[in-house]
């Protein structure tokens, strides 16, 4: 049995930042990750990381307000203040660790404009900032004493008297299950992209941590807030960074019109993502699209700038859409990209379950509320990753280890054995595809009661089918067939929280837009929706939004 | 067709058999060679000089290109390494700013590289300028029944974007085309585009020899009676050091290594002695006598 002070589940930006912070504070830390750390989906973030640096004449309060307005006032303002205040030091810290940020003529960090912000405060590394930061953080982990269990898959959290005291993980290389005892567990396992089809997300984004926390009785918040990114490629859902628009690219409809003029006359293509996605979807729905897409036009930016700052997405356009953005507009459309919701935490990463923390996309603090601004996610992962690591590391100093033993793996062993023993039934693939399509049909940019109820009944049917799913591969060594099937179970749980939240929220706010209830209703709905599993059933409760300085206003761009 | 012949360093030094065979074969194929223009041309740098100073390497090659341009003749190479290094230099100097900077160093000699010179290996010239069908017509002694293994040499197959493979896709399998055109059969083996080990010969002889023995034995396994290469540096390793490689691996190899013009020369009916096939380290008798037996 393995024994640690702090175990982090997930080796993306949030996970590794948490692990480093805890380790630097003296804890014995392990990171469990189902892929090599540099394969984590943080590497897909392209555009940049926001920070208000006061020595530039920027102001953290402006950043905070932009974020809160961007969230459609659902973000908790105390948390946003923390993030905005600590942003500068996180960015500088990354630079000190070796991040190769773009520089201005004086050799200082350069900025670009980004969606939803009145001031350019997005620091960037060409158009692969996420990959750049992830690799730098990984370098630091390599030089630290943190033990990383690579290609280990977490099957369940271990609870003892309503406290999380460890987890069970499978070494994918051998198929063996291991009990790992820990005084605290920090979940940083990313988002739920694969619940939707298509999605910009990697195949590993299956909501594992959110589902595990849900099953352990932690509150899951704001799951109806699903971000559809405005510029994704039709072919494979790949992301075309907001950076393109940040550098000045236009969005055109089939008539060659910069249609954002009609929806967000001030910020145009750089309005908040939900606004842009809705505008695009409306254009497409009203017949001004081309093959279900609109056009991203960057030709006027010139080859030199594109090669310097947008090289990766230029290549993506060539590889996956057959269009070179230097000479052609690229067809794009809204695609599922990010979940603002997640495991409810406070500003130190604590969930409603003792000993259990969460950070990054997995968590909902909430700093993104109803809609996340571009380049705020990288910031979120670093600030709250660090805070969770620090807090957990301090807290465990006062905690004793639980007395658990290897028998705690039995539940998982049995679950897996049952799956492997089944010889007749359906494989995971079609169930997963049906789930993805149902969610994309009814819980995308525009929603309504009928659609969401259809999704709910579809989900019940999918769960039924899942109860008799089979695993074709009966081997132990690297059984990806088994892993995908277990992941599907997690995805179904995550979908449940999204549907519950969406049906519950009787207004439109942020990314949750109901055609049957199109207005924002601050009087009744300025609150979070938290779904918790109690005794096998899901219960809903409301949590008020924390307001410090900024009263909700009408949201126009 | 007339070409400014750029023989490279090795064919005038340690591989004179290549030079002689080239002259003979070009004669028979109607390829006229101007040997004067490139008399004052330097070594290409072979990738080694580029380690110390890439710009100096480019300058030396720009000088050679300018000399070629002045002669009005296209440049012909007979070495994969020369070809590759020149192609890479040319590729870098498509950047006008860079080319101008390089040209300033050449102004003392009144030389200017205008970006037009297009050095090409004899291997490509046969396929592209003569054409494989016309080439086949000149074959008098087809190497029927002989299995020959192709060994390209890294520099003539990588990096593919500097070598014009998009515009001339036949270059990718040019050596196989020649082998088949001379009537022989291709002994395909996995290492045909791999490294012969010559660049690390003095630095890590063990690894270098392992490469030689891997490729020669692998070719033999496919039934090859000889290997052909368009690169004299590869030849130096595969032929010159074959005994050393054989000793290291503890197995006899005895695979004759032919220069490209020697293979072609045999099929054109030229006497093996004139092609200097008796001047190899690894005895070529077996392939010559096999040829004598063919109908």
């Amino acid at each position, binding site marked *: 049995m393995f024994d640690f002070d702090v175990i982090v589940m997930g080796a993306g930006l949030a996970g590794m930042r948490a692990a480093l912070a805890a380790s630097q504070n003296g804890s014995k830390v392990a990171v469990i990750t189902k892929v090599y750390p540099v*394969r*984590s*989906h943080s590497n897909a973030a392209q555009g940049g990381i926001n920070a208000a640096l006061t020595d530039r004449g920027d102001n953290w309060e402006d950043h905070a307000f932009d974020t809160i307005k961007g969230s459609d006032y659902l973000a908790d303002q105390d948390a946003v203040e923390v993030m905005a205040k600590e942003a500068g030091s996180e960015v*500088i810290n990354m630079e000190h*660790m*070796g991040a*190769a940020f*773009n*520089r*201005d003529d004086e*050799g*200082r960090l350069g900025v670009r404009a980004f969606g939803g912000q009145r001031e350019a405060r997005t620091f960037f*590394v060409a158009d*692969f900032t996420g990959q750049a930061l992830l690799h730098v953080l990984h370098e630091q982990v*390599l030089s630290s004493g943190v033990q990383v269990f690579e290609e280990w898959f977490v099957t369940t959290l271990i609870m003892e008297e309503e406290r999380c005291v460890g987890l069970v993980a499978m070494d994918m290389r051998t198929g063996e299950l291991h009990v790992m005892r820990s005084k605290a567990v920090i979940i940083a396992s990313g988002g739920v992209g694969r619940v939707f089809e298509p999605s910009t997300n*990697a*195949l590993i984004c299956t909501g594992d941590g959110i589902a595990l926390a849900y099953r352990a009785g932690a509150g899951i918040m704001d799951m109806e807030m699903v971000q559809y990114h405005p510029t994704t490629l*039709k072919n494979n*859902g790949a992301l075309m960074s907001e950076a393109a628009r940040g550098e000045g690219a236009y969005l055109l409809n089939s008539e060659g019109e910069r249609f954002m003029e009609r929806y967000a006359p001030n910020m145009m293509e750089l309005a908040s993502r939900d606004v842009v996605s809705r505008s695009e979807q409306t254009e497409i729905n009203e017949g001004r699209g081309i093959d279900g897409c609109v056009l991203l036009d960057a030709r006027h930016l010139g080859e030199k700038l594109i090669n*310097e700052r947008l090289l990766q997405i230029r290549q993506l356009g060539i590889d*996956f859409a057959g269009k070179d953005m230097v000479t052609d507009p690229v067809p794009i459309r809204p695609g599922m990209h990010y979940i603002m919701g997640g495991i409810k935490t406070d500003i130190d990463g604590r969930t409603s379950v003792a000993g259990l923390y969460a950070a990054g996309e997995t968590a909902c603090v909430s700093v993104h509320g109803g809609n996340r601004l571009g380049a705020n996610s990288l910031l979120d992962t670093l600030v709250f990753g660090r805070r969770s690591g620090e807090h957990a590391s301090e807290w465990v100093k006062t905690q004793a280890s639980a007395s658990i033993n290897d028998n705690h793996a039995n539940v998982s062993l049995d679950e897996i054995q049952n799956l492997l023993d089944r010889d007749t039934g359906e494989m995971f*693939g079609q169930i997963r*595809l049906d789930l993805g399509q149902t969610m994309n049909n009814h819980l995308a940019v525009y929603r309504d009661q009928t659609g969401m109820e259809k999704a709910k009944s579809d989900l019940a049917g999918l769960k039924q089918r899942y109860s008799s799913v089979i695993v*074709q*591969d009966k*081997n132990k*060594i*690297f059984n*990806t067939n088994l892993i995908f099937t277990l992941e599907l179970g997690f995805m179904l749980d995550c979908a449940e929280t999204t549907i519950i939240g969406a049906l519950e929220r009787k207004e439109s706010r942020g990314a949750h837009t109901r055609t049957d209830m199109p207005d924002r209703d601050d009087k009744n709905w300025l609150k979070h929706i938290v779904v918790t599993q109690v005794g096998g059933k899901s219960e809903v409760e409301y949590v008020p939004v924390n307001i410090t300085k900024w009263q909700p206003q009408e949201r126009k761009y | 067709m007339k070409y400014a012949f750029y023989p490279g*360093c*090795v064919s005038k*030094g340690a591989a*004179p058999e290549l030079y002689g065979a080239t002259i003979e074969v070009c004669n028979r194929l109607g390829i006229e060679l101007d040997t004067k223009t490139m008399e*004052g041309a*330097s*070594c290409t740098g072979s*990738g*080694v*000089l580029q380690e*110390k100073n*890439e710009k*100096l390497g480019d*300058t030396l090659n720009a*000088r050679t290109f300018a000399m070629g341009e002045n002669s009005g003749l296209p440049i012909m190479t007979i070495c994969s390494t020369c070809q590759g290094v020149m192609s890479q230099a040319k590729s870098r100097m498509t950047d006008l700013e860079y080319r101008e900077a390089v040209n300033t*160093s050449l102004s003392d000699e009144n030389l200017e590289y205008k970006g037009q010179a297009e050095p090409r290996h004899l291997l490509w010239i046969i396929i592209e300028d003569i054409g494989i069908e016309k080439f086949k017509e000149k074959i008098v002694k087809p190497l029927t029944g002989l299995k020959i293994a192709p060994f390209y040499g890294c*520099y003539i197959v*990588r*990096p*593919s974007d500097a070598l014009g493979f998009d515009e001339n896709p036949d270059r990718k399998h040019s050596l196989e085309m020649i082998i088949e055109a001379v009537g022989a059969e291709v002994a395909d083996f996995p290492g045909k585009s*791999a*490294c012969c*080990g010559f*660049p*690390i010969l003095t*630095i*890590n002889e063990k*690894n*270098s020899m392992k490469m030689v023995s891997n490729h020669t034995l692998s070719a033999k396994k496919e039934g090859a009676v000889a290997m052909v290469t368009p690169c004299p540096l590869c030849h130096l390793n595969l032929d*010159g050091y074959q005994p050393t490689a054989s000793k290291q691996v503890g197995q006899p190899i005895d695979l004759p290594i032919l220069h490209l013009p020697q293979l072609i020369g045999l099929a054109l009916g030229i006497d093996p002695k004139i092609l200097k096939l008796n001047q190899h*380290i690894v005895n070529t008798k077996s392939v010559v006598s096999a040829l004598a037996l063919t109908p």
Partner: protein
Amino acid sequence: MAATGKKILGNLQNMDVDLNIARFDPESDEKKPYRQEFNIEVDETSTVLDGLIKIREEVDGTLGLRCSCRSAICGSCAMRVNGQAVLACNTKISDLVSDENKSVNVEPIGNMKLIKDLIVEFDTHWQKIKAIEPWVKTDAPPPEAEYIASNESMMELIGVMGCIQCGACVSDCTVLAVDESFLGPAALAKAYRFLADPRDDANNQRLKDLNEPSGMWDCTRCMQCVEVCPKGVDPMGRIMKLRDFAMEAGYKNTTGARHAEVFSDIIKNNGVLNEFWLPVKTFGMFNIPEMLKLAPIGLKAMMRGKMPPIFYEKIPGSKNITKLFEKTKVL
């Protein structure tokens, strides 16, 4: 897992292809690699990864492969397709097949121990990455704000930091194929990243370590890594720069450095190479063991008329070449 046939694309040309896949079941009795051919229907935009996922989801759930992002940024899906290392997710099947040939060969990447089907061990790879100490090392505490650095220096880093650790270069490296101990293109390129970083102070130590056997001088300049890298990192170019740095920093006592110096010297003075003096001067005339090794080879060469003249004639106009060397201050 976008199974290709289910994409909502419409009007695309469909085609039947055969994916011939190298398989290995580590839990079988025979424990031998075998091949399995799958015939599937794909469309003109399908990638090799699309095809593999389709097989895994609809035909044979036991097929093992690593993949994640599907957009060439995570590095999981490196594999050998038709003999060359690529990322399966950005390799289009339509580029590989024709009317005459509808078969695509898929194998795990090379130079790494096989675990199962297309999944290989990356352990050695990570060991080598760790061995070059891949973190920024500074002598002094960092400044309050950011280090001041030119955008040019950051752009240079960005080129090499584009590496996604996919292992394609490691797979097809011709030196790793004969010598497992070689650091390899990925680790060496990563080492260059720190040497080129103006904020890293450990240049001397790094160069010293990389100068050792199995380090920077063991690269055979075959350009495989340059050819197969899906992100344009140019590992070999970085290794050449490492050699340049090493020689500039005074690390001239390796065979490789001497070879480069002697080579340049010969060209500077004669215009062309002399293969007699090159090895002799590289090892040093008084290096008896090496001279003894060269002697029989030299003798054989001499007997075949392949010995270059000891007193070499300079080429006409070689003075101009000498001048060019002096202008660029190479030696």
